[in-house]
């Protein structure tokens, strides 16, 4: 029997759970019906007080009401759960507030949809309520979220592929479940707004949040700029992926590309959209591109964007704190090329297309071959065609 504490007073201690001593809800229902018309807002407090008193009376007198006839409308629930101070205690000693703000509930998506409390709280059909199977707060939260799939099957299927589901399957109870991100009582639609996402993730990932908040992306988002990626833009929404998932790292340049190759978006910030192309045309990017095609489930040791630029703490390359700031490049290269020295970083053209001013050697070598190849091959072709022509002409002449 779950100990219910109401206003600090313990009651219903020795109730027979199986019989299901029913709350005197019908009694209350009778009271309400007797009062005639629908209760006005002004009289709601009074009515819920009456209901609570009736409940208490029913419990203490051992009145039993069959579960089939228990009232399960929300009003009945709110009679108790709208009252402040109501908590639910679990065997572990964890205590949870059992108070629902009725007005906020009414404004929520579930409230708007006229959801009944017992549609989600399926384990509750009698009073005093049945004991939850969970013994501590975390497993209670996880258990309660299992019901979401009944209505949100598509999302639940996607969650099943997420890093959170994998972590839970591996025994990590901290892994997020539905209600950790979506407050079932108060969430509005859309469930979590883009700018609210980092704060939501922060509840479990505050270390990462702190890095993100300082980054060029995080700084913009937290000051209201929706152009920048929020957590879910890179990690996905329900099928959230983490860095230990090889395809995520391997395909991450494409995530960056989705914004950084967008000319319209980048022109607002004067950022080159050639960053992805120039990456792919160099050793690192070529390998990653080919690797992801051939072995998308395997990992490559060649760097992706975040290996040089940083992950959550990305800052502009002209910021002296950036890992790709000119003065910091060598140290960044040395993370994978420990023997590299001063000239090494310029072996990477820094996402610039070679031109006569920036990287003239590369530019002129390329130009040299652009002229040499057609000249040589053209001359060869001309010579060969002349030979073909001569042969045809001679064959005609000599029959």
């Amino acid at each position: 029997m779950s100990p219910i504490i109401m206003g600090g007073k313990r009651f219903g201690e020795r109730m027979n759970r199986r019989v299901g001593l029913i709350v005197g809800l019908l009694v209350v229902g009778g009271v309400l019906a007797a009062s005639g018309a629908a209760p006005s807002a002004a009289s709601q407090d009074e009515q819920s007080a009456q209901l609570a008193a009736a409940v208490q009376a029913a419990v203490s007198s051992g009145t039993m009401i069959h579960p089939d006839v228990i009232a399960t409308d929300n009003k009945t629930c709110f009679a108790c759960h709208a009252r402040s101070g109501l908590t639910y205690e679990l065997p572990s000693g964890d205590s949870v507030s059992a108070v629902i703000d009725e007005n906020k509930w009414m404004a929520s998506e579930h409230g708007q949809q006229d959801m009944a409390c017992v549609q989600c709280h399926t384990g509750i059909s009698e009073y005093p309520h049945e004991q939850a199977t969970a013994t501590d707060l975390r497993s209670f939260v996880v258990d309660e979220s299992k019901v979401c799939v009944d209505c949100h099957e598509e999302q639940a299927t996607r969650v099943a592929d997420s890093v959170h589901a994998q972590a839970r399957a591996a025994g990590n109870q901290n892994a997020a479940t539905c209600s950790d991100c979506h407050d079932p009582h108060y969430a509005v639609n859309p469930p979590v707004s883009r700018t609210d996402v980092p704060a939501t993730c922060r509840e479990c990932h505050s270390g990462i949040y702190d890095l993100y908040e300082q980054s060029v992306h995080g700084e913009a988002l937290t000051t209201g700029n929706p152009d920048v990626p929020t957590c879910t833009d890179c990690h996905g929404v329900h099928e959230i992926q983490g860095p230990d998932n090889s395809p995520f790292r391997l395909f991450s340049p494409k995530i960056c590309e989705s914004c950084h190759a967008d000319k319209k978006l980048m022109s607002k910030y004067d950022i080159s959209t050639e960053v992805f192309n120039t990456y792919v045309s160099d050793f690192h990017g070529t390998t990653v591109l080919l690797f992801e095609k051939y072995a998308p489930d395997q990992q490559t040791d060649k760097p992706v964007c975040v290996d040089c630029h940083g992950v959550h703490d990305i800052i502009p390359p002209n910021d002296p704190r950036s890992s790709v700031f000119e003065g910091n490049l060598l140290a960044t290269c040395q993370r994978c090329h420990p023997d590299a020295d001063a000239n090494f970083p310029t072996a990477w053209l820094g996402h610039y297309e070679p031109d006569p001013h920036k990287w003239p050697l590369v530019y002129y070598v390329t130009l040299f071959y652009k002229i040499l190849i057609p000249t040589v091959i053209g001359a060869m072709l001309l010579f060969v065609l002349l030979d073909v022509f001569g042969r045809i002409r001679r064959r005609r002449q000599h029959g």
Partner: protein
Amino acid sequence: MAESYPRFTVSDRIEHWAQVVSFTVLAITGLVQKWPELGLTDTIINWLGGIEATRLIHHIAAAVLLLAVVYHVGTAGYRLYVLRQGKLMYPSMRDAWAAIHAVGYNLGLREEPPKEGHFTFAEKAEYLSIIWGTAVMAVTGFMMWNPIATTALLPGQFIPAAKAAHGGEAILAVLAIIVWHVYHVHIKSLNMSMFNGLLTQHEMEEEHGRELDLIEVGEAEAPLPSVGVVEKRRKIFMPVYALIAIVLLGGVYLFLTFEQTAILTITPPEQVQIYQPGPTTTTTLP
């Protein structure tokens, strides 16, 4: 009049086929890296077992080509020093005139084709192109394979410049082989000398008229020295070449193993505790 004329020794043919195989493998495994986004690239790389395997095959083929170069230094040196066949091999003004003559012949301005020696102007041009191309590919390949050693001496920009040259030279070489070599020895007429070592009477008449004329009067374009002289020069040449070969082979070994460019593990780009409940954590009763 002989039916056929000796053209290539077994050694020449082995050298040629080592080059054919390594060149072809290098071209295929290299060009797919130059154009990673092509559909055909996917097919080839999948077939070869992935990009890392493709690079390994490219490097092995490079090693085979370098070994062929070391061997060729020996055979070319033997021809030049021991057999004194330089006259056959060096390009000259005569070759330039032969080229012009050939154009005139094909345009109908000349009645007869140019009478050429053992090696035609087309062959000499191709040979010199191969020397140039192999040198460029080897140097730029070394630079890309060993970027840390290269940038210890040269500005970093030399690495992408080497890559541009390596790619450009590769396209030039592949196209030149297709246009020039394939035309001259496969399309114009199927030349079998790299299989059986022999040229036919017709091929000799058409391509090596001067050499044929000399053979018919019992002379040679570059007469071979006497057996005694050959023996004497051999005794000098062989140890010298052995020494050169050892140095070159050492060079090849260095080429292949010069540096460990990068670590082979993945350094996590970020060190952060993933689960770290934040200050705003609240628990809502579901």
